[in-house]
C-alpha cells in the first residue's frame, strides 16, 4: 500500500498520517491487494509515471475521495453536485469559507479513483442495475454510478444534492428518484435547450441560466447556514486561480505542440479537476501540482518528447474523454493517432478555447459570466452551433480528423452523431469517425473491440495526410 501511495505522489510523512483514513475508505470499497497491484500496473500503463505533477494530482484525487466519503461520519455539512460545473464557484466558496462544509462531485471522484485507477466499478454498476436503473434500457452509466453508491451506502451523507438539469432529463429524474428513495433533498438547476443557429439565442439562455445559478447560491446559503455571498465567491476564485491558469497553459501547450506531449486521458483528469469544487487542502495541492506539471510538460515540449511520434495525425475527440476508463484513448494513441483536443474544451462560435465576453454577455454580474461561458461550450450547444464549433476547431488547430465516441446511453449525445459526421465532413473535408461507446462503464465497449475500426481510421488519416502533402 505504501508503495502504491508513493506512486500517487504522497510524501512519507503524509502516508503515515493519512494511511488509516485511506485504508478505511479502501475497505469500504472492497479494495484488496489484488486491486492495488492492478492499480500499480494501470499507473505504469496509463499514467505517464515519470510526470511528478501528475502523480501529485492522482494523490489529490485519492485524498478528495477519502475526505468526501468520510464526511458521512465526520459530521460535516455535505453538498453534492455534478457536472456541468455551474455550481463550482458557489460550492468552493462555501467549503473554502468553512471547514465544516464539504462540497464536491462524489460520483466523479469515484470514477476517477475506482474507475480510472482500479477498474473496479462493476459492483457499483451492478448495484444500480438491481435498483431503478436496470440493464438493457440504455440507462446512463454515470447515473448508475451515483445510484449504485447510494444503494451500497457509499454515497456521502448528503444535505443537499444540486441536480444539473441543463443537459439531459435522465440526470434530474435520477436525482428526483434518489430523493424519494434515500431521502436526499434535491435542488435543480435548469436551462432550456431551445437554442438554434443564432447567437441571439445564447443571450436568452444565459439570462435564464444566470437566474437558476443565483437561486442555487441562495439554496446553498440556506443549507450551509451562512451567506455564500459574492465576496466569498471572489475569494474562492482567487484561491483557485493558479490551478486554473496552469491548467489553461497546459491545454495551450498540448494543442499547439507536435508531438503531443501528454495523453488525452491524463489531460482529462486535469480538465475535470479544473471544473469541479474541491476541499481547501486539495485546492492548495492542485495549485502546486498544476504548476509543476506545466513545467514538466514545457520541458517535454522543449525536448520534442511526445506520447505519439512527431507528425502523427491529430484528431479532435468528441464529446469528452472517459474518466472511468483510459484504455480506449490509450489504444488510439498506441495506434499512432494524437489527441491534442477534446470537444469539451472548445467553444462556440468557432472552436475557440476561451469564451467570448461581449457587451451583452459580460454585465456586472459574476454569475452572468459563468452562465455565458458554460452555454458557449460546444458540448452544451445546439446542433448547428456544435457543427460550427467543431468545424472551427478542425480548421483553427489544423486537425486531420474527428472521432466521435458517443455515450450510447446518453440521449443528449446519442441523437446527433450522424448529423455531426455529415456536416463536419462536408465543411472541413476531414474524415469523422463515429463509434458507439460508454464513457463510464467499461464492461461492454472495450478497447480491443474498437481497435479494428480505429486502425482503419488511422490508415485513412495517414493516407489523407500524405495526399495533402
Amino acid at each position, binding site marked *: 500500500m505504501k508503495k502504491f501511495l508513493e506512486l500517487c505522489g504522497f510524501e512519507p510523512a503524509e502516508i503515515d498520517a493519512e494511511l488509516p483514513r485511506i485504508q478505511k475508505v479502501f475497505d469500504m470499497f472492497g479494495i484488496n491487494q489484488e486491486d492495488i497491484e492492478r492499480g500499480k500496473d494501470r499507473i505504469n500503463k496509463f499514467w505517464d509515471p515519470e510526470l511528478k505533477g501528475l502523480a501529485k494530482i492522482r494523490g489529490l484525487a485519492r485524498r478528495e475521495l477519502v475526505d468526501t466519503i468520510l464526511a458521512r461520519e465526520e459530521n460535516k455539512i455535505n453538498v453534492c453536485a455534478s457536472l456541468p460545473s455551474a455550481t463550482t464557484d458557489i460550492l468552493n466558496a462555501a467549503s473554502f469559507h468553512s471547514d465544516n462544509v464539504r462540497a464536491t462531485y462524489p460520483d466523479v471522484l469515484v470514477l476517477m479513483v475506482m474507475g480510472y485507477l482500479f477498474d473496479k466499478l462493476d459492483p457499483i454498476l451492478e448495484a444500480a442495475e438491481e*435498483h*431503478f*436503473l*436496470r440493464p438493457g*434500457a*440504455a*440507462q*446512463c452509466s454515470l447515473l448508475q454510478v451515483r445510484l449504485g453508491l447510494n444503494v451500497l451506502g457509499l454515497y456521502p451523507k448528503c444535505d443537499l444534492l444540486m*441536480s444539473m*438539469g441543463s443537459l*439531459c*432529463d*435522465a440526470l*434530474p*429524474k*435520477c436525482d*428526483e*428518484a434518489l430523493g*424519494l*428513495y434515500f431521502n436526499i433533498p*434535491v435542488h*435543480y438547476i*435548469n436551462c*432550456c*435547450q*431551445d*437554442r*438554434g443557429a443564432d447567437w441571439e439565442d445564447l443571450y*436568452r439562455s444565459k439570462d*435564464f441560466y444566470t*437566474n*437558476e445559478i443565483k437561486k442555487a447560491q441562495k439554496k446553498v446559503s440556506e443549507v450551509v447556514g451562512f451567506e455564500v455571498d459574492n465576496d466569498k465567491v471572489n475569494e474562492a476564485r482567487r484561491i483557485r486561480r493558479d490551478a486554473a491558469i496552469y491548467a489553461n497553459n497546459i491545454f495551450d501547450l498540448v494543442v499547439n505542440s507536435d508531438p503531443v506531449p501528454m495523453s488525452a486521458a491524463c489531460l482529462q483528469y486535469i480538465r475535470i479537476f479544473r471544473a469541479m469544487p474541491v476541499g481547501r487542502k486539495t485546492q492548495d495541492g492542485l495549485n502546486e501540482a498544476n504548476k509543476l506539471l506545466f513545467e514538466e510538460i514545457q520541458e517535454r515540449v522543449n525536448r520534442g518528447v511526445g506520447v505519439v511520434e512527431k507528425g502523427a495525425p491529430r484528431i479532435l475527440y468528441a464529446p469528452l474523454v472517459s474518466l472511468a476508463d483510459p484504455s480506449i484513448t490509450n489504444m488510439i494513441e498506441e495506434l499512432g493517432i494524437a489527441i491534442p483536443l477534446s470537444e469539451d474544451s472548445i467553444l462556440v462560435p468557432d472552436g475557440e478555447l476561451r469564451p467570448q465576453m461581449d457587451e451583452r454577455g459580460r454585465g456586472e454580474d459574476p454569475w452572468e459570466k459563468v452562465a455565458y461561458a458554460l452555454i458557449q461550450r460546444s458540448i452544451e450547444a*445546439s*446542433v*448547428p452551433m456544435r457543427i460550427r464549433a467543431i468545424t472551427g476547431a478542425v480548421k483553427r488547430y489544423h486537425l486531420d480528423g474527428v472521432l466521435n465516441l*458517443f455515450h*450510447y*446511453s446518453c*440521449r*443528449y449525445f*446519442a*441523437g*446527433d*452523431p*450522424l*448529423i455531426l459526421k*455529415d*456536416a463536419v465532413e462536408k465543411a472541413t473535408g476531414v474524415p469523422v469517425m463515429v463509434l*458507439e461507446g460508454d464513457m463510464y462503464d467499461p464492461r461492454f465497449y472495450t478497447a480491443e473491440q474498437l481497435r479494428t475500426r480505429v486502425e482503419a481510421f488511422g490508415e485513412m488519416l495517414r493516407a489523407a495526410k500524405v495526399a495533402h502533402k
Partner: protein
Amino acid sequence: MQALKELTSHMRERPIQLRQMKEAGTKIVGYFVGDYVPEEMIYASGAVPLCLCHGGDPMPANVALSATTRFLCPFSRAQYGERLLGEQAYYKLVDMLVDPITCQHLRRAGDLWDYYTDVPVFRLGIPHEYNGEDALNYYVEASRRLKTSLEELTGKPITDEALREAIDLYNRMRSLLKGISLTKQKPNPPITELEFIKLNHASMYADPVFMVEALESIYQEIKDKDGEAAAPDVPRLLLVSPNIAYGDYKILELVNEAEGMIVAEEICEGVRFYWENVKGDGDLVEAIARRNLKERLPCAFMRDSTMPRLDFISGLLKQFNAVGVIWYQLLYCDTYDIESFFFTKEMQRMGIPVLKLESDYDILDRGTLRTRIETFIETIRVR
C-alpha cells in the same frame, strides 16, 4: 353512429383537403406531441395545426436510423422517418415545424428535421419545471416568439379576437373529449378505450370545427347509454404510458382480445390531454402557457413530477374503478423507465397489480406481449 361515419369519411378526405388548402396558400404547421405547443395560436394565425403523432409501425422508426442512432425511442425516430419515407401525407405537407423542447428524444427529432429537410423548425422553449414562475415567464416569452414567427409565416397578425375564438374552440374540444372519456366510468361503458383513443387521435389531424361538431354528436349519443354488458369478472384496467401513437394500437387490441377492459388512460404524448382547459381573459398567450405548463399534469421529464403523477393516477384508478395498471413504455424512454420502478412499488403497496410492457415497434414482440397480457388478466381475474 352517424357522426362517427362522417368523421371517418372526413379523415379519409383530410389529406386531399389539406393539399388543396396548401395549394391555395394556407400554411400547414406541424408540431410534435405532448400538449406544450399552443395549437390555439396556430389555428388563430390562419394556418392549419397538425399534431404529428404517427407511430407503431417499425418501418419509419427504422429508416430514421440512416440519420440517427438506435438509442432514441422508436416514436421520436418515426417522427423523422415518416418525413423521410414520404408516404404519409401529413408529414409531407408541413410548411413549418414547431419542436417543443420536451424530452431529449423529441428534441433530436426536431434537429433531424432541421438538418435534413428544408422545413423551418421553431424550437419552442419549455423549461422542465412546471411549478416555477420563472419557468412560466420563459415559456410565455417563447410562446410570444412563436406568435411572431407564425405571423411572419402567414403574413397576418394574430388578433386577440381570433385567439379567443380558437381557445374557445379547443376548450370545447377538450371538454367533449373529457365528457366522452368519463362515460367509461360506467360499469358497461358505451365506448371502448380503443375507440376513444382513435377519436382523440383524429382530433390531432381533423379540421377542429368539424371535430368539435362530431364530438358533440357522439357525446350526445352516448352520454346516457350503456354499452354491452361485460362479464362480471372482466378486470377494469388503467393504461399508463408516455406515448400512444396514431397507429400504435397493439396493446389496446391485445387487452381486448384477452378480455380485459381498459377504462381510462394517463398518456403524456400521442393523445390530447383533455382534463384541463385554458382559463382567463387577460393576456391570452399567458393563459394558454399557464394551462400547458402549470395547470395540467406534468410529463415525467419535468422536475419533481413523480409524486403529482402518482397522485393523479391513483385518483384515476378510483374514479374509473380500475383494479390494475398496464404500464406501456417505448424502448429507451429513459425518464418513464426510471419512474416505472417507483410507481410499480407504490402501486403494489396500494394492492394494485402492474404489468410493465415495453415496445420497440417490433411486430415480432406481439406473441410475447399477448402471453404476458393474458397471464396478467387471468391473475387479476382469479384474485
